[in-house]
Structure formats: structure tokens, C-alpha cells
């Protein structure tokens, strides 16, 4: 297909509009939602107690681009009593959300590891949602030497 000048201009304008709209929307989410907001949204306002969940992170991360993080939640993991999901947050990142892990009664153990990006020295937070509706939380401070979110 041949593209006329008019069409090319139209496409350009459209693309620009998307580019402008994109950053405008993104900071609104980034600034509007803090780690506390994210926890509230996850727990529905219920208080997250400490205990049961243990988060492990390195104390000092030389490279914020890939920081190993793992957690383990104490639970029998039966059909009636198991961990439904675990929310992982980084409170100093441009957007605090890292990932949400969903478990099932087939998980055996509610533990998982992944690698995350940290922009600067900050807290990594994990909140576990149990099948009985209670929430447990753990927090670890990670010192970051080189940030990992680009800039």
C-alpha cells in the first residue's frame, strides 16, 4: 500500500498523541499509588499483621537491576487453610508494585523466589493473603549501590 503525505501526517499526529498521553497517565498512577495504597488495595483495608511470612533479600545489592528476593509463608497449604496470594512491593521505586503471586492448595509450600529491580535503597515489602481473610506482612531494607530502573 502506498502511503500519501496526508496519511503519513495523520499517523504521525496519532503517534504523537499517544506519546503525550502515555507519560501523562503513567506518573498519575506512579505518584497516586504509594506502597501503603497498594497494601490497602490488596488487603481491602484490613490490617496486615507481622509474622508467618518471612522475606529474604540481600542486605546490600550492588546492582539494583537484579536483586534476588524470596519469601516463605508458614501455612499447612490445605484446601481449607492456605495462602491465596502474596503481594511484593518496593516502596522506593517509581511504581511500588513488583508482582503478585497466586498459590493454590496444590502448592505444597507457599514460597517463591524471583529477581527484581530496585531504583534506590528502599524497603521491599511482602504481604500474604490467607484463605481465612487474614493478612501478614514482612519488610526488609535493601541498600542499593546502583539503581536499576534506568533513567
Amino acid at each position, binding site marked *: 500500500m502506498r502511503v500519501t503525505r496526508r496519511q503519513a501526517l495523520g499517523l504521525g499526529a496519532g503517534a504523537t498523541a499517544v*506519546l503525550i498521553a*502515555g*507519560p501523562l497517565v*503513567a506518573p498519575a498512577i506512579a505518584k497516586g499509588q504509594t506502597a501503603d495504597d497498594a497494601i490497602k488495595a490488596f488487603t481491602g483495608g484490613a490490617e496486615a499483621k507481622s509474622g508467618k511470612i518471612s522475606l529474604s533479600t540481600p542486605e546490600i545489592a550492588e546492582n539494583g*537491576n*537484579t*536483586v534476588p528476593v*524470596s519469601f516463605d509463608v508458614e501455612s499447612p*497449604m490445605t484446601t481449607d487453610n492456605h495462602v491465596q496470594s502474596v503481594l511484593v512491593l*518496593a516502596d522506593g*521505586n*517509581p*511504581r511500588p*508494585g*513488583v*508482582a*503478585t*503471586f*497466586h*498459590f*493454590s492448595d*496444590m*502448592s*505444597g*509450600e507457599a*514460597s*517463591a*523466589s*524471583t*529477581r*527484581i*529491580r*530496585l531504583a534506590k535503597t528502599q524497603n521491599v515489602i511482602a504481604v500474604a493473603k490467607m484463605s481465612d481473610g487474614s493478612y501478614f506482612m514482612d519488610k526488609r531494607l535493601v541498600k542499593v549501590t546502583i539503581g*536499576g*530502573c*534506568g*533513567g
Partner: protein
Amino acid sequence: MAKVKPRVKVPRKAEAGEVITIKTLINHKMESGFRKDKKTGEVIPQKIINKFTAEFNGKPVFSADVRPAVSANPYFQFKVKVPESGTFKFTWVDDDGSTYSTEKKIKVGG
């Protein structure tokens, strides 16, 4: 982009009811949407794996909603209690809508 190739480690055999560890890795840039092109100064649009799921014999056992703070070449390690022989299916969903998946069989007992 380089060809996306998922890599998964599942033990070949297990006892019934044993809790096994599964390790998964997929090569993906996980473009965070915060980086800027050094030449043009424009923000590189976000392109990440936004969802990972693991199924066993068609039943979901583990999944993750992923946001840009997960590192490039996302790695997930998790546990599964295997009751019987069967097949694991792992699926990754990209922001652009494409999905990548792979399967692994496990033999239980015997």
C-alpha cells in the same frame, strides 16, 4: 527481538505427595517504560511479561501478575505438591499479546 525461549527445570520423577521445586526462566528484556533512548531522549515504551502461569494437568497451581519492577529475563522459583504423574504447562504473556509456553512431564511413584 531475540527469539524468546522459555527454560524450565522440573524434576523428572517424584514420590506421590512430594513437594517439588520448579525453576523457570524466560529471556525477555522487560522494558520498564522508564528508560530513555540515549540518542533521541524519548521514553522507550513499556514491554514486559505481565503474567506467568503454571498448570498441572490443566489445573492452575501457581501464577504471578508481573509488573515492570521484575528484572530482565524474569526468573520464578516456586513449589508444587505433586499427587500423580502428569504434565506441567507454563505460560508467559507478553504486553504485546503474544504468549510463550512450554510443557514438562513428571512421573510420580514407581
